[in-house]
């Protein structure tokens, strides 16, 4: 190479960038957005230049530089949801809330945004409010969905809930069943997916009994490790637009047979999960 790069001498700026996302995550969680002064402070404190921070903060949808409302409504305008009528849903929400995509209502109740693919194409059009998936949404459902969010979700939620029952799931992209009846855990066929972390790729099976968290894998997964999960049939990554309420790792959505979406946390050892049965049947 002909060039001597001065920045190479400035140690490990790449490593610093790796630490940045968790820091921004925490700020976003604390304030609901990334205030300018906070970012400037991160820059001085961690010695990461402000352009890099700003670049990352504006790159990821999960971060916002503007204050957000109490509830976040995202409408999927990904290819699949687009052809299934996503845009008309988006328009309806804009009308109901009287905001444009990316804006927050005057009363700071709702922020509305459009996103590209929430990882549940087979159930489109998808609307996600505060991490809850609503599937096959129709224009007439919109009002109900917004009201549901305002009144609080009647959800079966995360760590504390004691319910134990078997579920059957399929890939949120191709709708192919993820059940593997050759493998039995807790007395039921398991959910089998392909996983990847670090440079390891292999299979992972999960107990299909909701409330149990038995996991077996080809590899020993270190605690706290975030793993990527893939559908063994269509090979799409099982990833949505939401993060775990316990540990902010990405949630992995899967379709529940009989209607609804279950989301599990992608971090090894974290028990965060969320089950929405019925989905758009509300309203």
């Amino acid at each position, binding site marked *: 190479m002909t060039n001597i790069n*001065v*920045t190479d001498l400035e140690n490990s700026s790449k490593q610093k960038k790796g630490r940045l996302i968790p820091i921004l995550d925490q700020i976003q969680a604390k304030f609901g957005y990334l205030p300018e002064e906070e970012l400037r402070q991160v820059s001085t404190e961690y010695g990461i*230049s*402000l*352009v890099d921070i700003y*670049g990352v903060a*504006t790159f990821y949808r999960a971060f916002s530089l503007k204050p957000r409302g109490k509830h976040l409504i995202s409408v999927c305008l990904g290819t699949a949801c687009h052809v299934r009528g996503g845009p008309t849903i988006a328009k309806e929400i804009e009308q109901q809330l009287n905001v444009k995509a990316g804006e927050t209502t005057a009363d700071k109740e709702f922020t509305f945004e459009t996103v590209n693919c929430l990882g549940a194409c087979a159930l489109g059009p998808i609307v996600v409010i505060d991490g809850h998936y609503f599937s096959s949404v129709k224009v007439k459902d919109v009002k109900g969905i917004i009201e549901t969010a305002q009144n609080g979700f009647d959800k079966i939620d995360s760590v504390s809930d004691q319910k134990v029952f078997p579920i059957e799931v399929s890939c949120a992209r191709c709708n192919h069943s993820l059940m593997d009846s050759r493998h039995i855990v807790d007395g039921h066929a398991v959910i089998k997916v392909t996983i990847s972390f670090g440079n390891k790729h292999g299979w992972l099976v999960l107990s299909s009994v909701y409330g149990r968290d038995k996991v077996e894998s080809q590899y020993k997964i270190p605690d706290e490790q975030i793993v990527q999960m893939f559908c063994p049939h269509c090979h799409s990554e099982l990833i949505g637009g939401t993060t775990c309420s316990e540990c902010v790792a990405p949630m992995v959505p899967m379709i529940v047979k009989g209607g609804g979406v279950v989301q599990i946390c992608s971090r090894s050892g974290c028990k965060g999960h969320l089950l929405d049965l019925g989905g758009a049947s509300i309203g």
Partner: protein
Amino acid sequence: MISLNINGLDVSVEEGTTLLEAAKFLGFPIPTLCHMEGLEPYGACRLCVVEIGEGAGAKLVTSCTYPAQEGLKVRTTSKRVAKARKMIIELLLASSPQSKTIQDLAAKYEVKQQRFRQEFEDCILCGLCVRMCEEQMVAKAIGFRGRGQERSIGTPFDKKSDVCRLCGGCMFVCPVCTLRCTYNEPDKAICGACSNISAPCLDKDKFDDMMCYLDPCAACEIEKQPCGKGGK
């Protein structure tokens, strides 16, 4: 040393040499836009494509980022390369038809048609200015923001940068706004600040895809524009 074959000529180059450097060494011209000696290759504009491999396995790669490999067969002027290159220039021309650099490229490679809607973009996101600022000026005053359609270049929060060295390097390397510096031909200048035409920030938000990160802006200084945006 690595031996490879470019346009039928055998050549040995040091390990780590890019195909672009090897071809230059042999005297084969390859057009480039986002490449500049002294800056890290970035591979954004795709203009430097060459064809490697043979038969069904032949493919186009960007020569500015592709390292020379033992026994590689490279063609810099094959039909496929010529066609791809023309298409890339045509697309660049559509996004920034006002750029002298791109106009010259179009003339040189005989791009005679313009089938896409002209956009008059101020920036083709080649990243030259960002690399200049970071690698040579060690300032990191400007950078990429956002992604996809909203990707743009600028200072954080579109505010005057306190680390900018006012070196003008970013404008110097920019293939789209090079015209700004034709101070002796003011009618051709886009910015025209230095020749006292009018401040560009009258129509646009300062620092917002303006590509001119200098503050105070020459135009404001000279004209003492009432806009209040510059001159402080």
